[in-house]
């Protein structure tokens, strides 16, 4: 795929268009155009329905600012848009269970094929705890990962897993649109 994100946004400047109209304007194949549109939609810059695409408010802002748009990970939205990730499944498990520890989640979710599951999930739990999603349980498990938590009523914001962007030190909740700046220092993987 040839990445032409900004050009695709510019092609939508005058209003909604069909995939084949964008492809014709930019001299691209329809497949390549769809491949460009998917990441833009995932980032909330383009709204797509039944082959018709239009800019969102964020898309207009990016276009007006002339900011380059990359095709890489989506600034903390990756968990929401990839529902099979370990963190997305962990969020579902947290909503199902009354209380949980890291060991509980690993025992429920991991199949042995994950890379550094304890580090990944442990960091995710601590990030969400720092953002105020959990309350600690007084009864702790014995063992390496004995800390137990429960998702609070206010923390159970909806079905989409909050995304933790470790590099930027933020948690973004797609259910509420809120962003929590939690910093980066405390979230190195503990094993």
């Amino acid at each position, binding site marked *: 795929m040839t990445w032409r994100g900004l050009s695709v946004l510019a092609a939508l400047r005058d209003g909604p268009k069909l995939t084949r109209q964008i492809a014709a304007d930019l001299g691209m194949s329809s497949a390549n155009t769809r491949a460009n549109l998917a990441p833009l939609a995932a980032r909330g810059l383009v709204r797509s329905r039944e082959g018709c695409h239009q800019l969102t408010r964020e898309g207009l802002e990016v276009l007006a600012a002339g900011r380059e748009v990359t095709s890489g990970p989506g600034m903390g939205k990756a968990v929401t848009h990839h529902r099979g990730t370990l963190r997305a499944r962990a969020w579902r498990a947290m909503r199902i*269970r009354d209380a949980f520890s890291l060991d509980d989640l690993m025992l429920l979710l991991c199949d042995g094929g994950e890379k550094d599951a304890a580090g990944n999930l442990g960091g995710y739990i601590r990030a969400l705890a720092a953002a105020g999603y959990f309350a600690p349980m007084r009864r702790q498990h014995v063992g390496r990962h004995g800390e137990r938590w429960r998702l609070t009523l206010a923390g159970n914001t909806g079905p989409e897993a909050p995304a933790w962007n470790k590099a930027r030190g933020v948690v973004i909740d797609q259910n509420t649109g809120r962003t929590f700046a939690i910093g980066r220092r405390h979230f190195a993987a503990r094993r």
Partner: protein
Amino acid sequence: MRFVKTENYVRFSQAAHAVEQRGAAEAGMMLVYGLPGSGKSHVVSNWATKVGALYLRANVDWTPRYFLVELAKVAGIDPYGPSSQLFSVLRDRLAGSLTPLVIDEAEFTLPNNAAVLEKIRDFSDRSEMTVVLVGMERIRSKVARYQQIFSRIAQVVEFKPASPVDVGHVCDELAEIEMTQALKLEVHRLSSGRMREVLNIIANIERIAETNGLKQVDVGQLEGTVLSYNWETCTPRTVRRSAKSTARAH
């Protein structure tokens, strides 16, 4: 540490797959039942996190309205308005999404002539959602009284006590000390294959091993030790070096 795929898990997965591939759209219900502590909720939760199922735990005071409100909350929909309107909104949002619905502790949907279960059945019919009901061993006969509901159940899975092989796998995966084959068989005997009891016994063995500085534990080191308690007969369950377990170990 990871999820242990037991024989119950394999049978449940096969049944869930069969329900998803069903012929009649309205026969979209599945019943999972078994003794307490047999790992039903654990296995169904694992599946629910994989497929993104909506998961509800029924309560003793559930009513049809209460069910709709809880369903709306887990689906991220505002649970307001009259029941008929809420039902329509939920059906509109969830129909065709292929998102399954799990109802744990499903016994609590049966009071008042199964009013809540009728509402669930109605919702499943109209939205074509797959519904997994999870309950204790007697739920099967209780649900069978309601033929209009039972005829919608495409698959029934009974969770049986874990086999010695399953208990051995759990010991390998969970215990932070090494357990001999004979001790794993003894854990199976003491727990009667109930997973909840297996976890308690492993925790007890780990505590004893830590106190005594043991890296590997065998039946001989624990002979006569109380690792579990039978509350029905009020008798302790102690480790014993039986001929059977010793023979099977070899």
